[in-house]
């Protein structure tokens, strides 16, 4: 009889694809290299594995914190909510799905609109939240992003949209489809006003989001190995009745096919955005401090967002 008995399964170095969310708890295993990482270290590293540079998916607020100077921004239109225009029910009512997403994320829908300073430049950023119904675009996401672009046209500031979305939200039917048209029309105005628009595509960016604003940047920048495409891989496999090649619809594939300008490590993203924006004649913010917007000031890391009226 052995003196020691293995009561737990050994830490298998499985290479199987796992959802790259940062789980709760003290430590997390990197799905890229199997390394066990302290959550605290991961957080400090913008949720990028220090060993293999695997990019864990991050939320909209973490994203904004990583881009705005001193992690400070002003949030806009946080209270817009979907009223379930189709009265949609599948295996459960869409209303319930909305309610539980609102509860679990603390957001009212799948995007945060923020203004603030990025390396001293005034910018408008829309960051999508995947954990809100797959980051899907319904009427609220479409409306908020459109308003964000309109703010930018109004103030003559650049727009950055960080996409993280499974596409249009089918529970809002053709109304969600039309958000593709609405946001793209607003981008046409931004374009004609000669203002910068940078699209940042993160894992995953698919469907109606890719086929509208995510592909319309003056620059399209992707995070490494992000899934980016129009049709989902499974749909394509069904169409062609064969397995898709390794790396198909990943950021690097899109660069090779001329659809993405560059792939950038999350830790370099802010600096790269600042360089591009300066080329695009983005104006430095006025020197005097103070909050330009009187909506809601958010300081990253604060337990509760600091609200200003």
């Amino acid at each position, binding site marked *: 009889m052995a003196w020691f008995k293995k009561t737990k399964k050994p830490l298998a170095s499985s290479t199987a694809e796992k959802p790259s969310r940062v789980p709760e708890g003290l430590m997390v295993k990197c799905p890229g290299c199997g390394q066990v990482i302290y959550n605290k270290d991961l957080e400090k590293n913008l949720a990028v594995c220090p060993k293999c540079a695997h990019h864990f998916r991050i939320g909209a607020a973490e994203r904004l914190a990583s881009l705005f100077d001193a992690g400070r921004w002003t949030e806009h239109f946080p209270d817009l909510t979907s009223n379930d225009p189709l009265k949609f029910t599948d295996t459960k009512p869409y209303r319930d799905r909305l309610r539980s997403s609102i509860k679990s994320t603390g957001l009212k829908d799948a995007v945060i609109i923020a203004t603030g300073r990025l390396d001293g430049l005034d910018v408008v950023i829309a960051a999508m939240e995947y954990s809100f119904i797959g980051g899907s675009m319904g009427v609220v996401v479409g409306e908020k992003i459109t308003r964000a672009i309109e703010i930018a046209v109004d103030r003559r500031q650049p727009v950055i949209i960080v996409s993280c979305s499974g596409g249009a939200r089918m529970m809002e039917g053709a109304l969600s489809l039309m958000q593709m048209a609405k946001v793209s029309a607003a981008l*046409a105005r931004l374009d004609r006003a000669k203002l910068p628009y940078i699209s940042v595509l993160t894992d995953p960016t698919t469907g109606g989001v890719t086929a509208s604003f995510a592909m319309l940047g003056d620059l399209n920048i992707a995070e490494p190995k992000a899934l980016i495409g129009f049709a989902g891989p499974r749909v394509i496999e069904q169409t062609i009745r064969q397995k898709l090649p390794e790396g198909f619809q990943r950021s690097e594939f899109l660069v090779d096919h001329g659809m993405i300008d560059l792939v950038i490590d999350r830790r370099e993203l802010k600096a790269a955005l600042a360089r591009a924006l300066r080329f695009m004649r983005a104006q430095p913010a006025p020197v005097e401090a103070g909050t330009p917007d009187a909506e809601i000031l958010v300081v990253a890391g604060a337990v509760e967002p600091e609200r200003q009226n």
Partner: protein
Amino acid sequence: MPSDTLEFEEPIAVLLKEIEALSMMPQTDQRQQSIDGLYRRIESIRGEIYKHLTPWQRVLVARHSNRPSVLDYVNRLFTEFTEIAGDRRFADDHAIVAGFARYKDEPVLIVGHHKGSGGDTKQKVFRNFGYAKPEGYRKALRAMKLAEKFQRPVIAFIDTPAAYPGVESEERGISEAIAFNLREMAALDTPIVVVVHGEGGSGGALGIAIGDRILMHEFSIYSVIPPEGCAAILWRDSARKVEAAKALKLTAPDLLGFGIIDEIVPEPIGGAHTNHELAAALLDTALERTLASVSAMDPVTRLETRYQKFRAMGSVGITEP
């Protein structure tokens, strides 16, 4: 069951069989009278059925393989049609037709998906069943830019299951092709009238469907996802497509209520596929009036109105405290 009738038209199929049997027998006045009587009954049954179509039944009508194609309408309502090919970048996509023609004697530009409806399998394969690839959207935009340059109105015919979900579509940037069209059509400085006359399949439809007025045929559908796909994802069972079709609110009356379309084009009783001639005549009335009204607008107002039209879409679904 005759191939032309749909699953819910069984009473009609039965009568058609009876007529067929009668017509095989030697012709007499009495027999002819019974045949005429049967035809009248078919008409009245058809009228009843089509008054109460369910959303899923509308999906079937919208996808009927004899539903008029863009070219069926072009041949009946337009003259001097000259088809133009290619996106000048990669290839010519037969799933989207583009060309110029005269409508009521005025030059117009036409773009439209073509599923190969009315044709045999070879035709359908040639048209890739209406699944357009990036080059199709780029051809359409190239044609529309011609219309803009020479100040001719655009008429866009929408009938596609979806953009082609295949490897080469992704390689050549189907997303970018559709997205770019959305942006450019929003600002295209010439009148655009959109006619959703068959299947409005998601982004693949929208990619050539931005305009000043959106007309939609009575039994057409326009949806963010096909009911089968929606059922497969949300119910995890594509057999629940009938429920999904209902939940998606993809019928013309639904979309009129949401402000997504401007006007419903009536169809012959029994659907456009039963009578192409009449279907074309009914479209003609709506199209002539619509085109005249958008052409009469001054360009700046027209573009602003187009922007505001799409800008307002979805407001009905938002609660703002």
